């Protein structure tokens, strides 16, 4: 070991330790001065603040930990909605970008260039403060298809009222499990006998038939509850029944999905363009039909290029959902790092929990991505 190797490392270590030591010493002194003791015990205390919109039962008498859960679930909700729509829009626009139709191509290009060059926060504000504020009041709203009500107070959609919901869920789970078995069987059959099984149509059929059977014989019963207008005061109206999607959620999900879709579209385009022309020509020359070329040759290779950056975009979307704090959608940052922090004054604990939550989320996804990349990487012999 020579000194040239050890010295820089020791120096780095020293600097890092010094900085951390300095910070933690100051933190200790500061907390002593303010009479705060460091600890996570406050999580079980009564929170005594209300949250506007939550997926689980919550009010002021619940603990701070439950407030954290409320925020986390809201973050996950808006991320999942955003991811679903961003994927749909992104794939459609990405394919449109590849179209040989000049108009479609340019329209998609304009969409991509426009939405990705405007800050996400500005887009969220635009939808929330400008676009959705132009919607009619509940009493003036024209229903869409008779059951959806898009008002300034939110989007009211009908809800399903279930009997024996668990049996219905079991039937879907059964369908999924049987689809997995059929896939395994189909792959074996193709390897052994060279016969293709129409897995896709069988899967669709199973997914429809099994839940249908549960309706017919399992005693599952669903009725639709349509929102009904209700007068609160002389000029105040609202809808009752059904599900209410608050405008914060709508504008956030809209902005997130429109913004992220532009990046996903570019990923899709890059992926499909990344498959060399020779591959398609080779596949066509051995007699595959265009559909088979797409399914067996182009897509597997394109997906290999598309999926890693797209997962990155999903991760970005999830992290960007924290901008919810700007329009008061009660997500993790607003509920926990905002309201709870204000009430308890425990800056270090709360900010560290919030950061760790996001950190563990993104690290677990990146570990999964590394594993996936290794799995699908071309194995050269």
């Amino acid at each position, binding site marked *: 070991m020579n000194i040239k190797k050890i010295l820089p490392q020791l120096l780095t270590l020293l600097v890092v330790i010094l900085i951390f030591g300095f910070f*933690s010493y100051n*933190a200790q002194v500061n907390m002593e001065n303010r009479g705060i003791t460091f600890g996570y015990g406050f999580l079980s205390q009564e929170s005594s603040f209300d949250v506007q919109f939550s997926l689980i039962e919550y009010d002021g008498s619940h603990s701070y930990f439950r407030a954290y859960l409320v925020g986390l679930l809201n973050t996950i909700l808006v991320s999942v909605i955003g991811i679903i729509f961003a994927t749909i829009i992104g794939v459609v626009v990405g394919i449109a970008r590849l179209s*040989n*139709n000049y108009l479609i191509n340019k329209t998609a290009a304009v969409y991509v260039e426009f939405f990705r060059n*405007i*800050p996400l926060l500005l887009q969220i*504000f635009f939808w929330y403060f400008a676009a959705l504020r*132009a919607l009619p009041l509940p009493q003036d709203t024209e229903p869409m298809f008779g059951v959806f009500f898009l008002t300034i107070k939110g989007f009211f959609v009908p809800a399903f009222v279930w009997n024996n919901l668990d049996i219905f869920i079991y039937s879907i789970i059964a369908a999924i499990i049987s689809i997995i078995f059929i896939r395994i069987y189909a792959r074996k059959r193709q390897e052994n006998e060279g016969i293709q099984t129409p897995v896709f149509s069988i899967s669709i059929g199973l997914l429809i038939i099994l839940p249908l059977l549960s309706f017919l014989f399992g005693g599952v019963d669903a009725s639709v509850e349509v929102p009904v207008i209700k007068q609160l005061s002389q000029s105040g109206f609202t809808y009752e029944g059904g599900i209410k999607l608050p405008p914060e959620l709508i504008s956030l999900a809209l902005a997130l999905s429109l913004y992220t879709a532009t990046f996903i579209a570019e990923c899709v385009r890059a992926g499909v363009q990344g498959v060399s022309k020779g591959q398609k020509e080779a596949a066509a020359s051995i007699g595959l039909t265009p559909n088979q070329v797409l399914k067996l040759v182009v897509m597997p290779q394109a997906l290999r290029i598309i999926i890693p950056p797209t997962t990155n975009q999903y991760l970005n979307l999830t992290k960007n959902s924290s901008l919810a704090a700007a329009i008061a959608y009660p997500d993790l940052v607003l509920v926990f790092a905002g309201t709870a922090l204000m009430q308890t004054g425990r800056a270090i604990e709360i900010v560290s929990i919030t950061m760790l939550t996001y950190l563990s989320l993104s690290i677990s996804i990146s570990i999964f991505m590394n594993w996936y990349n290794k799995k699908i990487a071309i194995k050269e012999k």
Partner: protein
Amino acid sequence: MNKLNFLQPDKNNLNTYLYSGVILVALSIFIVFLNSFFNKDIISFLPGSISFFLPLILGFIGLHLIRIDYSGLKFLDTINKNINTNNFNAFLSLLIVFVVIKSLPPLLSWFIIDANIAGDSKDVCTGSGACWTYIKIWFNRFMYGMYPNAEQWRINLSFIALAFLGTIGFFATEKFKKYLTLYYVVVYPVIAFFFIFFFISGGPIFFDFSYGIIAAVISIIIGFFIPSKFKMYYFIIVPITLYILLKYVFFYEELIELGKLEALEWVETGAWGGLSLTFIVSFFCLIFCFPIGLFLSLGRRSDFPIIKYFSIGMIEFWRGVPLITVLFMSSVMFPMFLPEDMFIDKLVRVIIAISLFEAAYVAEVIRGGLQALPRGQYDAAKSLGMGYWKMHILVILPQALKLVIPGIANTFLALVKDTPLIFVVGLLEIVGMLNLAKTNPEWLGFAMEGYVFASVLFFIICYAMSKYSYNLEQKYKTER
């Protein structure tokens, strides 16, 4: 005379197909045009859904009729090839054309025809269109935030000077070209600092800062003559000593006197805002995040385990958390980590936070470039007897950075788009100012105009940046 088969148009009766097709398409576009621009429904005698779909059907048939391969007419062939290759494409093309025609009049009327720009109060905005008066009145605030009106020339002067100094590279003669890198990497940022801290901030902070600059410049000049053996120790010790000497020994008396002189009025950073703040924050973060990211990426590929894991930890930490929590940290958690009497300005904290955050992304981008270089480059440089730094500066980094221009440009774009987030700590750049103006009781109800205005501004900035990065990429592209 060939038989006419309208299901399969061919070249033989070209004119018949062409005329009927063009007439149908023109008719369909005409109907939609009348409907949208003059609000006249000339086919209203038809039942509802048919009259709604009729233009689409007419145009569709028309496009079908003119879809003739190798017609010999150049124009027709171009159209067919680009928008009319098959039924599905024809349908989509028609749909796009109709939607554009349909949405033009309302957009035009909102933006221009029914919009108001004259006058200087809310009362002139009576039309159904946009109220650009609102933008006009608030323009100063959107550009400069709460910066005092009388002092705004300082911001303008600084930006004009910096823009001018930034373009010097284009005018440099061959003789000075080789110093350009030095200029842009060292001199220009220093001048920028100087301008922003002296001109825009004003007050005594200028003196502190100018001592730092003088100390740095003097030590760099002397540094050229120091034998390389002692350079490292020299650059650690001398600048700091010089700074302390300047501040506490040489100029101490002068500082007080100069403070009494008619110096520029000090404007606290809390009053900065608007688009100029967007530029300031982006500019400084750009300058800082690049070198930090460069060192992190080199650190991540280092052979020294401690440095390597430290870099990995830094990169993964900053990449794993949302920027908004980083800003939260810098505003509510960071003060806890400092001694009671020590105070770091809000703007400085924000710039440090954003720089560290973006540096992690820059590091990953540069690492991609480093990994893309073939091993041979490293081996060749080593075989010439180059050390670690010489190898990286002369051989590796020039090639790696060239490769990652698009990635770095994307990160910088993301940075510019992230600056509005500083509203979290209470700094109001343009989006924050919009939100402030929107809640002003005298100007309620003009949120849309404000957001459209800011969107256009940001679009121009970001689009120009991305195009510029594309040009750079083309310019430095080398065949490998």
